């Protein structure tokens, strides 16, 4: 346990040090990546640990972002907006789960995809309030968190890192708890877990709800840190990105979401600055991972020797 904890704290310390030395451009990028990594951590809890392959997480991200954005737009405080975003993500995920978890496998993927699509279309339909695809900027007055001005680089990175640190450590505690092992049991063999007395429906619902909560926080945080909220974050592409991050970093590893988000974000950024081929990069990465490295980087490392990797 201690070396696991040391590893995680070292990663967080490394990120903090990075914040002090990075040039401005990468500074902003890393803050973005940290928020996306929180989102990917949420996705990892559902997909990596519980085996729920969802194509609808963009709804939870979008719900959290929209709730926080509208709240701040109406003059609410940023701290409350974060909480509201978490609640929105939790609520959306619970509602989705109650219905979608009656199905499994491919049907679950399609049902979550359809719900997320309906949510996205609803945001467009109420474009007068949500700003539709163009979204709306958040007022500077609302972007103050505990005396920190989130439009400044330094505070923005600090807050992003703080949110990420909490998410990472909560994830670690969660997956090492009894409940976390129940989640893995559902992934590995649902029938056997049922026979041992665990209720698959409530367990998976709880996992999805927690996953939604993380996604909602990530959405709210992203909106607050970068001062912009829009329906484009609820598109199918934002359901696929966390899947990509988690697959790349390693599904069912605590640090996989961060690693995957960093590598993929920079890969796409580099690719789109060199050519116009960012879509193809995403596609090729998905194909490569599914074909040759279904366990991702950390999953493969764990298989090849570093067995204690959480």
């Amino acid at each position: 346990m201690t070396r696991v904890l040391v590893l995680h704290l070292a990663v967080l310390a490394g990120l903090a040090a990075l914040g002090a030395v990075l040039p401005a451009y990468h500074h902003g990028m890393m803050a973005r990546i940290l928020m996306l990594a929180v989102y990917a951590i949420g996705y990892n809890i559902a997909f990596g640990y519980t085996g729920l392959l969802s194509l609808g997480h963009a709804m939870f991200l979008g719900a959290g972002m929209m709730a926080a954005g509208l709240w701040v737009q109406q003059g609410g405080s940023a701290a409350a907006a974060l909480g509201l975003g978490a609640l929105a993500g939790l609520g959306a995920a619970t509602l989705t789960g109650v219905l979608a978890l009656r199905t499994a496998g491919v049907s679950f993927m399609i049902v979550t995809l359809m719900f997320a699509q309906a949510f996205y279309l609803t945001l467009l339909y109420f474009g007068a309030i949500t700003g539709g695809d163009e979204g709306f900027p958040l007022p500077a007055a609302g972007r103050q968190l505990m005396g920190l001005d989130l439009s400044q680089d330094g505070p923005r990175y600090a807050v992003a890192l703080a949110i990420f640190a909490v998410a990472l450590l909560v994830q670690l505690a969660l997956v090492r708890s009894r409940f976390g092992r129940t989640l893995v049991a559902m992934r590995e063999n649902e029938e056997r877990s049922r026979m041992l007395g665990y209720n698959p429906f409530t367990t998976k619902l709880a996992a999805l709800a927690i996953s939604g909560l993380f996604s909602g926080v990530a959405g709210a945080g992203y909106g607050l840190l970068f001062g912009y909220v829009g329906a484009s974050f609820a598109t199918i592409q934002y359901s696929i990105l966390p899947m990509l991050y988690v697959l790349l970093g390693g599904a069912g590893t605590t640090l996989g979401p961060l690693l995957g988000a960093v590598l993929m974000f920079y890969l796409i950024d580099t690719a789109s600055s060199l050519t116009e081929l960012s879509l193809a990069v995403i596609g090729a990465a998905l194909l490569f991972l599914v074909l040759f490295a279904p366990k991702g980087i950390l999953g493969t490392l764990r298989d090849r020797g570093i067995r204690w990797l959480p």
Partner: protein
Amino acid sequence: MGTGPLLLLATLEGTVMAAVLALAAVGLSLSFGVMRVVNVAHGEFFMLGAVLAWAVAQAVPSAPLGFVAALVICPVLVGALAYAIDAGLLRRLKHDPEATIVATIGLSYILQQGALSLFGPDARPVEAPFTLRLQLPWFGYSGYKLFVVVAAALVLLAVWWVMTRSRAGLVMRATQIDRATARAFGINVDRVYAGTFALGAGLAAVAAVLIVPIQQAHYLMGHDPLLLSFIVVIIGGLGSIRGTLIAALVIGLADGILSMLYPPTLAKIFATLAVALVLVFRPQGLFGARP
């Protein structure tokens, strides 16, 4: 225009929609039925059919000839591409349902990017092979659109014949019902899978070639057909071709009529929610029988 003629116009538009939709959806339904995989790149095969139709029509100088050439060449090209994709990619994944979805998502990004890079972001028109206009008492109607309905019906009839009367169809149905036994009887299941995948993609391409003279070819045009095909296949019952046809007719007509009365976004919201709920509460589809 009075209510009656307006309804007639909506029904005509709905029928055209239903015909094209049925082609695309039967393609998706085939690969789902026989191979048990969901092909997310199906919309991209549709888009490729349309974009290639434009390219072929550019290469052939006369308009009717260009269209006919496209109608023959594009489905074959798209089918060949699908065959290669199945043999080179999906077979390596052993057609695992979830891995296949992830892979075809990746594929759809690559195909979109390919179309964008090679054909550019503009919508490209293809000229209809003839410009006959049927003058009804209330409004004129494009004869080409009626041709689309007839052509789609003929292709579907051919598919039905192949599936129920030919040896290839027998082999496909045998594979669908029991893959292991089919293999034991000497059927090359890998080839059946690749062939089914190619046939499904080819049907999407036929639908696309028929529709380009009405809508234009564009690299993002695969989204709506994919979503609608999904809806049709799910409502019709996963893997059941008859259900798919009935559902295509119902949904095509409903779409044609409803979109004249309600804002399209609202109609889409209800359609997607309805499909999700059908999958949750009636996974065998509305038209019942499991294949």
